[in-house]
């Protein structure tokens, strides 16, 4: 098992936002999580990426319990994520944003900084290379020095991908990566996600765009009121009565 949650739960006051969820993510695949609004999808991501500590249950990564690790340590292990509301360093430009993404793979400390050691220079060079590389990977080379605040929604989504990629992740969690993006560009972003998967990066994403999920996902989990109500291939999910009732409604195939 690559990433696995065991009876994972999170309580907010009187509300069980995530309730006893067992789920496993397959390496190298595209996994998806769907479910009604407030089902607990984002909370589930937050538990895995270390933003929240579980109330009970565990998160295992490659057989190791990471439930209590802080977010930055989890990122260091190779687990990257994006946020539901696009979250970037608004005042910096694209390059400056992305170059920070690689800093977790650097060792330079204060000493290196003050004395401009060889290590620092090398690492800085490497970070810059990495940044340029992922910027070109997500297709933003031509706006590399534009402040993020001036970008469109879709470009910002791409920056968010680039930021996550710059951390050299093994797995990326994407929270509604195409929300507010038009169909045309949604397809381009889907292609980008596929491209990431082809590079060997495991993907786990939340989306409400069923058409895209059906095309992309190898495996889908459905949450409702914090509980897992279904799990399976797109086809299985598409036909699941409970899922249709709780989530998809009549437009399931749209």
């Amino acid at each position, binding site marked *: 098992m690559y990433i696995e949650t065991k009876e994972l739960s999170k309580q907010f006051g009187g509300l069980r936002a995530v309730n006893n969820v067992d789920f496993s993510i397959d390496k190298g695949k595209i996994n998806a999580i769907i479910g009604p609004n407030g089902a607990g999808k984002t909370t589930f991501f937050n538990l895995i990426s270390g933003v929240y500590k579980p109330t009970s249950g565990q998160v295992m990564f490659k057989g190791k319990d990471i439930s209590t690790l802080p977010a930055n340590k989890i990122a260091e292990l190779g687990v*990257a*994520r994006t946020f539901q509301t696009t979250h970037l*360093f608004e*005042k910096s430009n694209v390059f400056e944003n992305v170059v*920070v993404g690689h*800093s977790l793979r650097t060792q330079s400390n204060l000493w290196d900084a003050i004395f*401009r050691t060889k290590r620092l220079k090398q690492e800085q060079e490497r970070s810059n290379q990495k940044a340029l590389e992922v910027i070109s990977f997500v297709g933003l080379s031509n706006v590399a*020095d534009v402040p993020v605040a001036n970008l469109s929604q879709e470009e910002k989504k791409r920056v968010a991908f680039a930021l996550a990629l710059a951390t050299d992740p093994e797995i990326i969690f994407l929270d509604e990566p195409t929300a507010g993006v038009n169909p045309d560009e949604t397809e381009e972003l889907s292609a980008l996600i596929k491209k990431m998967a082809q590079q060997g990066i495991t993907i786990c994403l939340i989306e409400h765009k069923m058409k895209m999920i059906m095309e992309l996902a190898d495996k889908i989990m459905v949450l409702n009121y914090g509980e897992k109500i279904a799990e399976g291939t797109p086809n299985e999910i598409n036909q699941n009565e409970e899922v249709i009732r709780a989530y998809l409604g009549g437009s399931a195939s749209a």
Partner: protein
Amino acid sequence: MIKNNTQKYIVLGLLLVALLFPLFTQNNYYIHVMTLSFIWMIAVYGLNILAGYTGYLSLAHAGFFAIGAYALGLLTVKAEVGFWLALFLAPIITTIIGFGIGLIALRTKEHFFAIYTLCVGYVIYLLIDKWDSLTEGVRGLMGIPLPSDIGPISFESNIAQYYFILVVLLFSIFVIYRIVNSIVGRKLVAIRNSEQLALSLGISTKKNKLLAFVLSTFFAGLAGALYASFIRFLGPDIGSTNITFDLLMYLIVGGIGTLSGPIIGTLLVVWLSQNLQFLQDYRMLIFGPLLALLIIFSPRGIVGMFSSMKQNLQQKRTLRQKEQKKEA
């Protein structure tokens, strides 16, 4: 990337002027005020690392300044440690105390952090004030020695002190310049921009915030120690919140989070307030509104004013690029 170069030239230009300044004036008073300004600048740079680059506003800065000052004062006066050793130890002592405080203080965020440190600063001030068996309390600590001679170099004269402190300032700016323009500096800025995002990118916000905090206390302590050796008398007031506000004012007026802001802001405000002395009772009546106006009309500080001109240019480029993209 390009931005830093202009900043660098501003800094270098100003420092050149500072280097030559004594050659053009024999006025002891000018030299004195300039020397004192240099000391404030060092402290302001410390504040800038934390408030400007990391986004945490510490209102205990004068407290750490005072710790550095009293460390030097007490070491030389009461423990009779040699000046240079004391000057070396004072910032280190400040840093150690800063580390301890930072460890707890940094659990809080934003305004909570500001007020938390306000209280810490106040407690430091009260401790200096009340612990008179150690600090001499309100009576003040007298008889702090000048820097002792190094070989043929003596620090008796104003000019010698001026250059001595200028050199320390140069050293501080150099160190800060290097830190800010390195991976470490980038991490700090990332924390300022969004702590949550920084964390999700694997940046240990805890560690880096603490680093920034400790660095800021180091420079506060260093400045404090220099202050002690320059004024050679210490009273508890040096740790009061008013001093923190002064330092903050220098920083904001100059331009927070910029490399040349601390120099420009300090010079401007210090000389402004000196030159308003002739107004006597009306001084603060004028100075207060002037300060407010300065902030209103130049909300990003003097340095910010210049860089917004440049941003206009940048924006034009963005426009061009967008058009190019659409054509492609």
